[in-house]
């Protein structure tokens, strides 16, 4: 290999290394594994009743607004116990767990999260009857041109 090309290859390898190390491969069973971790085993997780509201295109992975709304009457006998946010391509994929109860009146939570990469964010709600429901939102994270290197 000519020296220049080898030099460029090395340079690319060096430049690429931190990103390669940071990228978490999307495993087919990654999400299932995470969900099992949260639910503590073999609980059935059904899709539905959970709406995740985010911008489709995030300006920035550092602060992505996110709203979770669970379809629940929030009565003393039928309410949402907890909501867990999962971002499987984040280095720490379990983002947060929020606990609430019938006194909330409305099963809706807003926060701002970090996303390491373009991915589908999953919200997992546990209801008062013990059942699990989930919803997702795809977020495309864009990159900056002018970085703070100072």
């Amino acid at each position: 290999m000519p020296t220049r090309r080898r030099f460029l290859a090395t340079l690319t390898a060096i430049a690429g290394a931190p990103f390669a190390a940071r990228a978490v491969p999307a495993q087919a069973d990654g999400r299932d594994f995470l969900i099992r971790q949260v639910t503590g085993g073999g609980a059935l997780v059904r899709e539905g009743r959970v709406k995740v509201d985010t911008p489709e295109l995030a300006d920035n992975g550092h602060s992505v607004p996110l709203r979770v709304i669970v379809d629940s009457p929030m009565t003393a006998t039928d309410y949402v116990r907890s909501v867990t946010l999962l971002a499987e391509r984040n280095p720490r994929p379990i983002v947060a767990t929020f606990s609430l109860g019938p006194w909330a009146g409305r099963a809706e939570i807003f926060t701002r999260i970090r996303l390491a990469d373009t991915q589908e964010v999953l919200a997992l709600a546990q209801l008062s009857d013990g059942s699990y429901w989930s919803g997702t939102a795809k977020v495309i994270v864009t990159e900056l041109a002018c970085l703070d290197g100072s």
Partner: protein
Amino acid sequence: MQSDDFSNPGMLWVARGEKLWMTPAGGSGKSCATCHTEASQGMKGVATRYPAMDPGSARLVNIEGRINLCRARHQQVEAFQYESEELLALTAYVAHQSRGMPVKIEIDAQNRRHFDRGRDLYNRRIGQMNLSCAQCHDQNWGKKLLTDTISQGHGNAYPIYRLEWQNAGSLHRRFRNCLYGVRAELLPAGSAEFLDLELFLAWRARGLPLETPGVRR
């Protein structure tokens, strides 16, 4: 995000600045409020006239510099470091009192020298990229750099909360980012060159309303 005071994280710095405004400091036992009383009245419109010449030293100072002069002259206490949490908070608090008011800078015999130097720096090609401020922010604003839209390069929202920084920061920090971007030598925040540039930018932004604290990517 910027227009809703609660969603705007910069308001946390404004709130901290308000606390600092009331807190006595140094040998004098004075707080900012001791001399200036209510910031909402005394500081209203002040930021629209900065950077300004300090009559005592015949030097150009921005709000950060004015706060540190006050600390030295009236509070007898050491200066805040540039880009420190406290200086950002107080600067944001003071500038916030002028939110919505138009920038009002006049060039006269006193500040002309600084203005000329600032304009010269703005138009001078620098760094390995050999780019001037004007080439991006006058000639190519609105176009894309990757997913960034090139701004018009106005400083009327500073200190800002920048999502990339995950923190509040000064106009001079942003200058350093630009210098880094064009691979030029990084000047220190608070340096004479940056103050001159800040004056030129304020003149260039005259008429635009102050937005402090701004929120940017």
